[in-house]
């Protein structure tokens, strides 16, 4: 009987742990609040590069920048001496948050309007770099740097590579487009609070995951 009681408590404990697990997920607003520095609350809108804050120096962006490598976590692998070859790809992007908004939709109220160019992030144009020749949907993309943006639709995203580097994401020059790729969109049941890009390993290279709100898609890249 005592043993059974112990077992019961153990199971109960396990179930409690399970209940707590989702709170470790970054989709949970309270979890993400902790990671956002408090200075951002007093900041100007992200499209204005606020140059001064109380101490006179550049404040932290509301949509902070992030970087994803392929192989994933390449800098850590390199630091540990596990991978000392060249990385294959890197993306530098900013990470806006959903903040209760409906991100994708048909109206001007939506952050990303169907059929209109979106910078695939925030602030500066999102930048992707290939350190070797890449192939996407049978198209060759030479090693080098590109900006990458998106035209979202309800069921597909058009991902565009463009050569206008070092620019702010709100102004897109289609004359400098290099390649366009249509990708089907998956609608997720869980909410992805923070816009995310990351390279997932695939058989011939990597799939560049792009996910926000209830949408996710993957761009297959072979190297």
């Amino acid at each position: 009987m005592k043993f059974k009681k112990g077992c019961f408590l153990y199971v109960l404990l396990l179930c409690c742990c399970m209940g707590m697990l989702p709170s470790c997920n970054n989709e949970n607003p309270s979890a993400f609040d902790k990671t956002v520095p408090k200075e951002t609350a007093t900041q100007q809108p992200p499209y204005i590069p606020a140059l001064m804050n109380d101490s006179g120096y550049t404040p932290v962006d509301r949509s902070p920048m992030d970087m994803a490598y392929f192989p994933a976590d390449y800098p850590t692998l390199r630091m540990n001496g596990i991978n000392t070859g060249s990385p294959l790809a890197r993306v530098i992007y900013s990470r806006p948050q959903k903040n209760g908004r409906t991100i994708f939709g048909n109206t001007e109220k939506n952050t990303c309007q169907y059929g209109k160019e979106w910078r695939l992030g925030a602030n500066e144009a999102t930048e992707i770099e290939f350190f070797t020749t890449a192939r996407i949907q049978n198209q060759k993309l030479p090693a080098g740097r590109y900006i990458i943006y998106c035209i979202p639709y309800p069921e597909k995203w058009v991902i565009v590579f463009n050569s206008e580097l070092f620019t702010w994401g709100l102004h897109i020059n289609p004359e400098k487009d290099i390649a366009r790729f249509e990708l089907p969109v998956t609608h997720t049941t869980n909410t992805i609070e923070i816009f995310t890009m990351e390279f997932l390993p695939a058989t011939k290279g990597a799939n560049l995951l792009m996910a926000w709100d209830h949408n996710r898609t993957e761009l297959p890249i072979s190297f």
Partner: protein
Amino acid sequence: MKKLLLSLFIICMTTVFAVAQNKVPAVDKSPMDMSYYPAGYPVLKIGDKVTEPLAARVIYSRPQKNGRNVFGELLEYGKVWRLGANEATEIEFYLPVTINKVKVKKGRYTMYCIPYADKWTIILNKELDTWGSFRYDAKKDIVRMDVPVQKLTEITESFAMYFEKATAGVGLNIAWDDVKVILPINF
């Protein structure tokens, strides 16, 4: 009972796995940022207000003071620091520059710092795409320069790096807590 426990355990572990599958990387505690010279270059570019050629860009992460004493405590004097957080700080020049009388070619470099109470040794190194300063190798240094520490009257909560025009070339301003240094870069 054991069987029941085992099956419950398997169910739990499967759920753990499923939860892990949904996970996307969280926002970094020390978010990344980017500074250009000319300052705000991407914004100048879309407004057709560029008057000088693109010269430099730094990509760094921004740790916060969070009530800590940064220099001499959190960061030990005389020890190599990655000049930021997370990935090693990266500087890129789009034209040849001169730092401490050394010619530096166009391209990407990592940056490190050895802080002291009155000066910082700023280092440019050619080991790219790495994490922090844990594998810092002085043999891969391109240039080192000692710059004097300036005391600030106001606290800089978030570590900051930005370029400002100087009499000859630009100064890369680096500030955190109550100190700041300026690295002179000449074109």
